[in-house]
């Protein structure tokens, strides 16, 4: 089934959906421009703006549900930027409203959580300003009805991400991590911008509508090139191979940032881009194949990295990479996978934000310790954090009837039908997920206490635990709600299309049982290694495979060898050429002029009579020359 037509809309909440963006933007502006005067109420204003944005999104969603499914793509025109070429407009359709609800709802919860988490930080107001800025930029990204607007939001979230990773910029590691994220994203953005240029050159339009019409018309369209360039952009933003290296370092930022930006929303923008550019990708098997391969490679790489990390946030970051790999895999399959990709994106947004915030709650109680080898036995002292985290854990490993079970299983089943190799690799990834997430949970909440002497873990305040509880409820019910009866696929189909034959949910398919079996093996193995056995306080050396995973699969080493070193050589060569070549030329010319004028000035003896002599000689020469020339 093809996507529905976009209907121009004005009035109602949908007509005012720009408020969703404007409110958090206003919050950011007030907090950033207001300075210290807004310190007292800054966090409350930030929360209020995020919640207000969610209310607008929810009302727009309700109004959208009032239309027949085929009429649920509403375009809202705001401003004619370049007449005939670029309009500033919003597109409220099932896809964008799903994102809006996720961003504003999870965003609001994380805002509320941050009140407690950042309570003792002197720069809390600035933190909320950046969070508001991020929410606004992310909403621009998903609400824009054209690639230019998407690009504006894309760069906006990149900026917010940079500012928030480096929020504690007095720590050199945080400052470096922020720069790294920004620079790696530059590579992706380069691909995205060239992709958008190519789209404009091909279709003479930047709107999604124009692209879809152009694709329908046919003709010679470089769909593969556009698809691969857009994929490069998606890889940068979503930390997919080969641009994955920044995400693990991005954990230097405050934990709510990791939860909101680097788990639930911003890093999924790449999946959004691929799904939104469906008309282009569906026309090119090559690009779609590359998307699925990138997805599978990343889901395995992220999972393997997750198995070896002792830093709780980095283990979760590896897991985020891996889960986004699943989404990419589904997004690369086409309309059959779109609904599962976005459904997994939404449920992942809930359970991963839940776990990140849970990790933040643990750190909050443990003097910001992140090394899981210094945790252990925390389930008794942090009961709420433990229960909510455990629900998120069950959801991500795909425990039956929780969110991840439905959405991840959907992805694996679809991948299996599409290509058996990809499908089995995805099953393997699920097994590794079972292992590394169990390892994380056992090391943190079970076993003996391995705390530092000065650690006095305690449960976090209510302002931090309530968001955890709400998110964990989402982690329980959302998957079943979205997947059973194909509810989400039917809702989403006007925006992205769907296969003619709806998939049906088989709880006891071979694939599903194999997945569950592998996950169970992973959990049992993790229990054997980290649950029942003593966890050493210092990481054992391990085999070369462990070292391989600990060093992020040598991703950084590879970047250094392939890009950084040659880059340094190039700069050194340029410096050498500048010093010896350019400077040498200029300096020797200057020395020549300086030296010769130093000698020439010796003529100025100060003796009047020698000057007079030179005048006479000159005059004589002139007169003599005149005689000679005159007599010729």
């Amino acid at each position, binding site marked *: 089934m093809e996507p529905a037509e976009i209907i121009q809309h004005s009035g109602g909440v949908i007509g005012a959906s720009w408020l969703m963006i404007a409110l958090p933007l206003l919050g950011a502006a007030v907090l950033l421009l207001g300075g210290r005067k807004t310190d007292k109420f800054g966090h409350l204003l930030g929360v209020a703006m995020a919640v207000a944005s969610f209310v607008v999104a929810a009302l727009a969603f309700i109004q959208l549900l009032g239309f027949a499914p085929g009429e649920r793509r509403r375009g809202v025109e705001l401003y004619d930027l370049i007449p005939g070429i670029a309009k500033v407009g919003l597109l409220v359709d099932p896809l964008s409203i799903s994102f809006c609800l996720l961003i504003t709802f999870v965003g609001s919860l994380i805002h509320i959580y941050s009140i407690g988490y950042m309570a003792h930080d002197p720069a809390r107001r600035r933190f909320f300003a950046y969070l508001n800025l991020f929410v606004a930029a992310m909403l621009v990204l998903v609400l824009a009805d054209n690639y230019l607007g998407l690009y504006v939001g894309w760069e906006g979230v990149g900026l917010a991400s940079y500012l928030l990773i480096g929020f504690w910029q007095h720590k050199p590691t945080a400052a470096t991590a922020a720069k790294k994220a920004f620079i790696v994203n530059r590579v992706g953005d380069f691909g995205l911008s060239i992709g958008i240029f190519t789209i404009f050159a091909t279709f003479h339009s930047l709107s999604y509508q124009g692209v879809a019409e152009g694709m329908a018309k046919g003709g010679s369209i470089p769909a593969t090139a556009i698809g691969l360039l857009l994929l490069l952009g998606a890889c940068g933003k979503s930390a997919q191979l080969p641009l994955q290296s920044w995400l693990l370092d991005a954990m230097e930022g405050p934990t709510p940032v990791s939860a909101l930006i680097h788990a639930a929303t911003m890093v999924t923008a790449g999946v959004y881009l691929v799904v939104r550019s469906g008309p282009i990708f569906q026309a090119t098997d090559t690009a779609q194949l590359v998307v699925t391969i990138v997805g599978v490679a990343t889901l395995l790489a992220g999972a393997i990295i997750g198995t070896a990390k002792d830093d709780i946030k980095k283990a979760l970051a590896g897991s985020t990479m891996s889960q986004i790999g699943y989404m990419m895999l589904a997004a690369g399959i086409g309309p059959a996978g779109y609904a599962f990709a976005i459904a997994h994106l939404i449920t992942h947004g809930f359970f991963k934000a839940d776990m990140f915030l849970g990790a933040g709650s643990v750190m909050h109680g443990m003097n910001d310790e992140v090394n899981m080898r210094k945790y252990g036995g925390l389930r008794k002292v942090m009961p709420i954090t433990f229960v909510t985290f455990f629900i998120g854990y069950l959801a991500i490993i795909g425990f039956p009837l929780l969110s991840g079970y439905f959405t991840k299983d959907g992805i694996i089943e679809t991948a299996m039908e599409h290509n058996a190799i990809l499908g089995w690799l995805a099953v393997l990834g699920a097994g590794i997920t079972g292992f590394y997430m169990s390892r994380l949970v056992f090391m943190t909440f079970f076993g003996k206490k391995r705390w530092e002497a000065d650690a006095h873990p305690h449960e976090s305040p209510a302002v931090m635990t309530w968001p955890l509880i709400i998110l964990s409820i989402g982690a329980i019910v959302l998957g079943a709600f979205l997947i059973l009866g194909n509810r989400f696929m039917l809702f989403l189909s006007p925006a992205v299309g769907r296969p003619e034959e709806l998939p049906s949910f088989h709880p006891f398919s071979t694939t599903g049982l194999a997945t569950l079996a592998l996950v169970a093996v992973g959990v049992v193995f993790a229990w054997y290694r980290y649950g029942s056995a003593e966890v050493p306080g210092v990481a054992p050396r391990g085999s070369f495979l462990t070292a391989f995973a600990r060093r992020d699969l040598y991703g950084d080493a590879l970047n250094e060898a392939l890009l950084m070193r040659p880059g340094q050589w190039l700069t050194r060569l340029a410096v050498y050429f500048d010093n010896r070549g350019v400077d040498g030329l200029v300096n020797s010319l200057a020395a020549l002029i300086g030296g010769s004028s130093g000698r020439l*000035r010796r*003529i100025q003896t*100060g003796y*009047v009579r020698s000057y007079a002599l030179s005048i006479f000689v000159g005059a004589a020469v002139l007169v003599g020359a005149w005689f000679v020339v005159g007599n010729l």
Partner: protein
Amino acid sequence: MTTHYLVLSALLFAIGGVGVLVRRNAIVVFMCVELMLNACNLAFVTFARQNGNLDGQIIAFFVMIVAAAEVVIGLAIIVTIFRTRRSASVDDASLLKY
């Protein structure tokens, strides 16, 4: 007829030129410069007479006026130098150099 005047003018000019080049005393050098100027004046006047117009005579007047002004300033400088250094030698006044 005018050739004699011109030869005289050239002789006077040559005497003045040699004086400027070889004498050290600033006053003498100065007088030699005046001699050269007046040699020029003689040549101007001679040409004026030969051509039957007044152009050369007018120029000669200009030269005299400039020479008079020059004498005023030049003598003042020489006298000042003499007062500070007790010497009127042009070779002693050679500080303004490289």
